């Protein structure tokens, strides 16, 4: 174990190996019919947990979304709803 560590405390593994899905109580679900592709949800996501699909619709990266609901709150057309995880 000690041998595997670098000499100085230098971290080099990108943090997206850490999945933060378990932090979440509610999950954002997008109603693509309402979505205007405005990107606002993407812009305000503090966890960089929103990507886009091939045609420009937002896609929640559920491994990372912590369920803060900012996207739902800020989506003007209210295309996002927060759904309880079970």
């Amino acid at each position, binding site marked *: 174990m000690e041998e595997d560590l670098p000499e100085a405390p230098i971290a080099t593994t*990108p943090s997206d190996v850490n999945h933060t899905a378990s932090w979440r109580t509610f999950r954002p679900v997008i109603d693509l019919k309402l979505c205007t592709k405005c990107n606002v949800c993407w812009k305000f996501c503090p966890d960089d947990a929103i990507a886009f699909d091939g045609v420009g619709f937002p896609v929640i*990266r559920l491994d990372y979304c912590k369920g803060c609901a900012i996207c739902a709150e800020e989506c003007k057309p209210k295309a996002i709803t927060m759904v309880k995880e079970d």
Partner: protein
Amino acid sequence: MARLTIPAQELMRSGHSACPGCGATLVMRYLLKGLGERTIVTVPACCWTVIATPFPTTALDVPMLDCAFEATGASISGLRAAADQLGLKDVTIVGFAGDGGTADIGLQALSGMLERRTDGIYLMYDNEAYMNTGVQRSGATPEGAWTTTTPVDEFSRGKLEPKKDIMAIIAAHNPPYAATVNVAFPEDFVKKVEKAKAIHGPRFFHALAPCPPGWRYSSEKTIEVARLATDTNVFPLYEIVDGVYHITRKLGVAKPVREYLQTQGRFSHLDDAEVAKIQAQVDARWKRLLALEGLA
């Protein structure tokens, strides 16, 4: 796909350890969008030391150097000097620190960096308390706010003293560029960062970073709270370029400060008189800001 209003490149990774809805995270995200890859970030003790995730992981795609809580300004100067000596002239050095690490314990190192005209950027993300240690008052905590060291009880009504005016302190050092930014206005944020990047000498950002657990509101309100801060003139958006003030968002009529205060549990004990006092202070500060803009 709609045109993005801020750069697509993400230099901050997912999987970080911020609370859900953390404003400080957005500050880092926007900052790095504006600065790009050839950036080195130095970070003192603050929520971001934790947000950046524990060893062996790291949340930034650029080098990050931890520094002592009180020494960000010096760390920037050290990195700049080394970069210059090692032929890395094109690299942007940026210090990223909390309000406590900037306005309190790190103020001196910051002042030193400004005085010696280090070519680097210092950003203070302002969640208005020592959050990483669990919501103790900082110099940047606003008057009236509850924190764990400014309780609400018989002999205490939250913080007694006004918020330290970091921008005024910075302005007193006459840097070539200083600006306030707010996570609710990412386009303005990134634009200012890009502008600052092109300037040499010491540059400073004061970034508002709402904090759901510390300010006692629920996580989805981060942007709303942030927006209200600016729209009530509690946190005006402006630049100071070579000493000249320029307000970058001016509303016809500002919203009443009460609208901002009531979004947050930390202000819930305030009575009408206290709210009125805060309103008067905000008005006075706004007036002064307008006057300073007029000085140009």
